[in-house]
C-alpha cells in the first residue's frame, strides 16, 4: 500500500486557489492561533479550569477545511476541537466563555472545553471519547444522502484514534453505504504521551489502512493550508458527487503538550525544533509575501484577529457563572430533567 502524497506545488497568487481564498486561510489560521494562545494564558491565570487541548501548530488543518467546507456542511471533532469549532464560524466569546465555565459559553457552561458545539454553524460537536464521533459522522452523512441534499460530513480525529474499534466500523460502513463523509486524521505523531509509531502496526496510521476500506491512501502536509485546502476541496467534491467517503491523513505537530498540564517533555528536542521550523503560520506568511501579497494586508488581518480575541476575552470575563437552575435542564427535549411524574 503506497499512500499517495497530495502536496502539489503551489503555483502562485492567482492559481487554482487564488488570493481571496488564501487570505481566508490566513485569517482562520490566525484566529485559531491567537485564540489558542489566549486559552493557554487564561489557563495559567486559573480562569480556565478543567482541561484543554490546544491546536497550536495544527491550525492549517482546521483552516484548510474550514475554508473549503460549505456553510451547511457538518463537522465533527474531538476534545482538541477549539480550532474546528471556530473555523465554522462559532463565536470566540462562546468558545472562551465555555472554556471559562461562563453563561455566555457555547454550551452555557454545561459542556466544557472538550464538547464545543455550535449546531447553527454546522459544528456538530466535540467528542471526548476516542473514536465515537466517526460512527456519528457517518450518521449525518447518511441523513444528507437520505434527504438528497448534497451536504457533507467532515470528521476530524487524531492518529491515536485509528487504533480503536469505532474507527474500523465507521470506515467500513461509510464505504459500503457510499456516504458523503470525509475522515481527516491529524497525525501529530503522538497520542497523549506515547508516540503513535510505538503502538501502530503500520507507518501511516490512517493512509496505510485506507485500502482496508476500499479507499486510496491520501497523505497531505498538514502544516500547509494550501495543501489541506486542495485535499479538502477534492474530497468534498467527491462526496457531494455521490462518490462516497475519503480518508485523509494530514501530517502535523502540536506545539504544546497534549493537554493543559503537559509540558510535552517526552518529545526529542530536535523533533520539536524541526517542526517549529515548519510552523504553519510563518511558512504561510512567507508564501503569501512571495506571491506578492502586501505585508500590510497580512498584518491587518493579524491585528483584527488579535483584537477579536481580546474583545472575546473581555466579554467572556464579564459573563456571569451559569445559573444553578440549568443543572436540571435539558436532559430531555421538553427542557426538563425529570425521570418521574
Amino acid at each position, binding site marked *: 500500500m503506497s499512500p499517495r502524497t497530495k502536496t502539489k506545488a503551489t503555483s502562485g497568487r492567482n492559481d487554482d486557489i487564488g488570493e481571496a481564498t488564501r487570505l481566508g486561510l490566513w485569517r482562520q489560521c490566525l484566529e485559531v492561533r491567537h485564540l489558542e494562545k489566549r486559552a493557554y494564558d487564561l489557563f495559567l491565570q486559573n480562569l480556565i479550569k478543567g482541561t484543554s487541548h490546544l491546536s497550536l501548530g495544527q491550525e492549517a488543518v482546521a483552516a484548510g477545511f474550514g475554508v473549503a467546507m460549505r456553510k451547511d456542511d*457538518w463537522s*465533527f471533532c474531538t476534545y482538541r476541537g477549539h480550532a474546528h469549532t471556530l473555523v465554522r464560524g462559532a463565536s470566540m466569546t462562546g468558545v472562551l466563555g465555555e472554556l471559562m465555565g461562563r453563561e455566555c459559553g457555547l*454550551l*452555557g457552561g*454545561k*459542556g466544557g472545553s472538550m*464538547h464545543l*458545539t*455550535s*449546531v*447553527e454553524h454546522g459544528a*456538530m*460537536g466535540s*467528542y471526548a*471519547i476516542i*473514536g*465515537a*464521533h*466517526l*460512527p*456519528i*459522522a*457517518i*450518521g*449525518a*452523512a*447518511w*441523513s*444528507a444522502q*437520505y*434527504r438528497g441534499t448534497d451536504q457533507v*460530513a467532515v470528521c476530524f480525529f487524531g492518529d491515536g484514534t485509528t487504533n480503536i*474499534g*469505532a474507527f474500523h*466500523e*465507521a470506515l*467500513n*460502513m461509510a464505504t*459500503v*453505504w457510499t456516504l458523503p463523509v470525509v475522515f481527516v486524521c491529524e497525525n501529530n505523531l503522538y497520542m497523549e504521551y506515547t508516540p503513535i509509531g510505538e503502538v501502530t502496526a503500520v507507518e501511516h496510521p490512517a493512509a496505510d489502512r485506507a485500502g482496508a476500506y476500499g479507499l486510496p491512501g491520501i497523505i497531505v502536509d498538514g502544516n500547509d493550508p494550501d495543501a489541506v485546502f486542495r485535499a479538502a476541496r477534492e474530497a468534498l467534491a467527491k462526496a457531494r458527487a455521490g462518490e462516497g467517503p475519503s480518508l485523509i491523513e494530514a501530517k502535523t505537530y502540536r506545539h504544546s503538550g497534549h493537554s493543559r498540564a503537559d509540558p510535552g517533555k517526552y518529545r526529542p528536542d530536535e523533533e520539536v525544533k524541526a517542526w517549529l521550523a515548519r510552523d504553519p503560520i510563518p511558512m504561510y506568511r512567507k508564501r503569501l509575501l512571495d506571491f506578492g501579497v502586501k505585508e500590510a494586508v497580512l498584518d491587518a488581518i493579524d491585528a483584527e484577529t488579535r483584537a477579536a480575541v481580546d474583545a472575546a476575552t473581555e466579554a467572556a470575563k464579564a459573563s456571569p457563572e451559569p445559573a444553578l437552575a*440549568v443543572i436540571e*435542564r*435539558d*436532559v*430531555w*427535549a*421538553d*427542557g426538563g*430533567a*425529570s*425521570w*418521574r*411524574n
Partner: protein
Amino acid sequence: MAELTYREAVAAGIAQEMARDPNVVFLGEDVAAAGGVFKATVGLLEQFGPRRVRDTPISEQAILGAAMGAAMTGLRPIAEIMFSDFLAVCWDIVANEIAKTRYMTAGQVTLPLVIRTANGGGSRFGAQHSQSVENWAMAVPGLKVVAPSNPADVKGLLAAAIRDDDPVVFFEHKSLYAVKGEVPDGEHIERLGTAKVLRDGRDVTVLALAAMVPKALAAAERLAAEHRIEATVIDVRSLVPLDTETILREVVKTGRVATVEENPRLCGWGAEIASIVAEECFWDLDAPIVRITTPHVPLPSADNLEDATVPTVERIVATLRQAID
C-alpha cells in the same frame, strides 16, 4: 381489534410510524431482507424499500453512531441491536454519546431515536444472549426506557417511542415474541411513562415488567384461589420516565409491595423503586419491601437451570405468601 403476536406488533408499530413520517428510517443487522432474526420486522423492506429499511454490517457502534448522527440532523431513526446483551459492544455510543449529548450541548442537539433490542431469558441461549439489562439503561441519565409485556403495548409504546423527541431504549422480550393479544385497529399510540394497573387487590402491590408480568398475574390468581391473598398487579411498562404516581398510590393502598424482576439482583430496577417507596411511603408500609429477582448470577443454559433461575410463578407465590404471613 385484531389479534397479533408480540412480534407482529413490532412490525405494525414501526409500519404505522414509517407510513406517517418519511423521516423515520430503520437499520440493523439482518433486519431488512431477512425480516430480523426474530422475524419481528418481516414485511418492512417490502413495504418501505431499501432506502428506509437497511441491513448493516456487524458493527453495532456504527449502527448506533449512524442512528445518532442521523437523528441530530433531522431523521428519526430506529436502530435494532439484535440481542440486548450486545448493547455492551456499543455502550459508549448509548451511555456516553446518545444519552449525554443533549445535556452537554445545552439543548442544541435533539436525538429522536429508538434503540430496539431483544431482552431476557427463557430461550436456552446461555449467559451472553439472555440477559435482562433494562437496569443498565435505567442507570444512565438521558435515556428513556420502555419494556412492554403484550402486543398492544408493543405497538402503542413503540409508536410513542418513535414520536418522542428523546432517545428511547425499547426492550422487547424474546420469550414473548410468540404471544398473541388483541391490538386496537387503526392508529394506536400509548403514552410513555405510564404504568398500568392490571389487577386490583387489597393485600399486596406487585410490580412487574415485561415477561414477569404474565408470571405475576398467574401468581396473583394462584394466591387468590389457593391462599385468599389478593394482589394488585402493576405492569410498570416504563422505567424512565417512571410512573411513581400510580406506583406509590397503589402501594399506599395495600401497605405491602413486592417487585418481580428478571434482571439480576444488584442494582435492579426494583432496588430503585424500593428505595423510593422506603423514602416516600415509609409510614404507609405494613411490612418489609420484598424483591423477587433473578439471583445475582449469569444465566445458565440448561432447561431446568434456566427455568429455576429466573423468577417462577411458584417462587412468586411462595415469597408473597411468606411475606404476607
